């Protein structure tokens, strides 16, 4: 014995390696038996009967001493969960609205760009037309004084309106831009 060393883990592992497969096979065949499942069911049934009895007794005791049972506390927790669910539903609806708002804002932005482009085009058209009218007017020969109609003594009210409207129109177009 003096020449031997004692390796507890080595012995343990060796024992395990030598016996495990034999035990495993025998246990495996037992576990596969329908009788084992039946036994398991019986144990389960007895445990649940005992547990049911304990639950019932605990509940009636808690009722007598005016202490809320687990079910009663759980029902309060359920109410809180229900409120939270409603909040989550509201949050979801807000998300949907936010998404819709985002898409509307996008559409409005696109619309603005399109209107701006149209405005610029209109300005160009007006400019060209004005130039054309001016060119025409320059090309037409100046009429003789006889042909010029007599000016009214008082200025036409339209003339004032026209002069007042011109800068206003310009301002509108600038705002649009």
């Amino acid at each position, binding site marked *: *014995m*003096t020449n*031997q*060393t*004692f*390796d*507890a*883990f080595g012995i*343990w*592992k060796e024992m*395990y390696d030598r016996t*495990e497969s034999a*035990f*495993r096979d025998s*246990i495996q065949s037992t*576990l*596969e038996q*329908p009788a*084992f*499942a*039946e036994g*398991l*069911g019986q144990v*389960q*049934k007895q445990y*649940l009967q005992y*547990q*049911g009895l304990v*639950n019932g007794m605990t509940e009636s005791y808690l009722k007598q001493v005016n202490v809320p049972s*687990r*079910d009663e*506390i*759980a*029902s309060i*927790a*359920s109410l809180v*969960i229900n409120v*939270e*669910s409603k909040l*989550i539903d509201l949050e*979801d609806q807000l*998300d949907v609205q936010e998404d819709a708002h985002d898409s509307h804002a996008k559409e409005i932005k696109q619309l603005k760009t399109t209107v701006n482009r149209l405005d610029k085009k209109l300005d160009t058209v007006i400019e060209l037309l004005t130039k054309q009218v001016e060119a025409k007017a320059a090309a037409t020969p100046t009429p003789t004084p006889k042909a010029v109609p007599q000016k009214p003594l008082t200025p036409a009210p339209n003339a004032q309106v026209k002069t007042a409207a011109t800068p206003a129109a310009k301002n509108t177009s600038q705002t649009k831009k």
Partner: protein
Amino acid sequence: MSNGVPTASFEQWIEAMKLPEEAVLPQDLEKIKRFTEVVTTESDPQVGQTPKEVIWTKNKSKLYHYAPHAKKTNKVPILFIYALINRSYILDLYPGNSLIEYLVNDGHDVYLLDWGTAGHEDRHMKIDDYIVDYIPRAAKKVLKDSGAKELTIYGYCMGGTMSTIFTSLYNDILPIKNLVLMTSPTDFEDAGLYTNWLNKDTFQLDKMVDTLGNIPFEMIDYGNRLLSPISNSLGTYVGLASRIENDNAVLTWKLMQKWLNDGVPFPGEAYRQWIRDFYQENKLVKGELAVRGQEVKLSNIKANLLNICATRDNIVQPEQIKALNKQVSSKVNTLHEVPTGHVSVCTGRYAQKEIYPFVSKWLKDHSK
């Protein structure tokens, strides 16, 4: 021994049993001391360390966005869905050993829906509620937060089955580009030992849900351990003892134990539905499952499918997983078999070297 006084023969026997001092080497004593420390007093490793922020909550659930400030090179975000009985950190276990960390570092935009811990007030929650009230909202939040036009749904285990149902119902409503599943059962015709144990004649399903409300994690864990009782109990500690001097192996062992022992209760009605509609009546693959009255047809799934099947999985049989690929209408329909178990498919050396890079590449290839 007589009158409490040791006799000569007893003393001789004790003497014979004594090991000579030189027989017990100091390193053996160190090993025993270290083993005792690891099993009894040492603290758990810190899990779920990838930086994340909460972007949405509902009841106990939280939607996480991982590494929100990191550079994203893949435009299609990933939404992870895991099983109702696990903790969210299982997919982000430990730095260097985390699927989420790997994907984030590889330029993916990663989100995860954390189910939280169901309370007694959640015992009436059905799988329908999670699929209709939680997952679609989370998916919309992911799309809004990321600004992406499409997303990838990534399910693990039961979370994969839920993701499958969700995709079949919402594939035409939400832009689901890819569906990635890891060890997710679809066909429950032969679920191994569970088929025997959960049969309608012996298993007290209704009594269990009515009495307990939520099903304690320990009860589900007991069933999982019973699948391979010796290796899941004694074998775990023998494995630790034989590698006790290797710090990395000890860390991996502790991470595994944390994963396996740290679960959450299964919401009662969801459990009833999971066992009855799936394990006992196998409705999903037969096309008989209805979620809030809506028929679930697997053929409605048109998203690109990557279905990862672990061939050494004893919780979900490979045949339960493969059935999905035959039923979907996806043009890209990939079944990827890996030689791992149910847990080692997303953690451990093989997962880090083979599975993470494969998944990341597949996602990049199918997110263009």
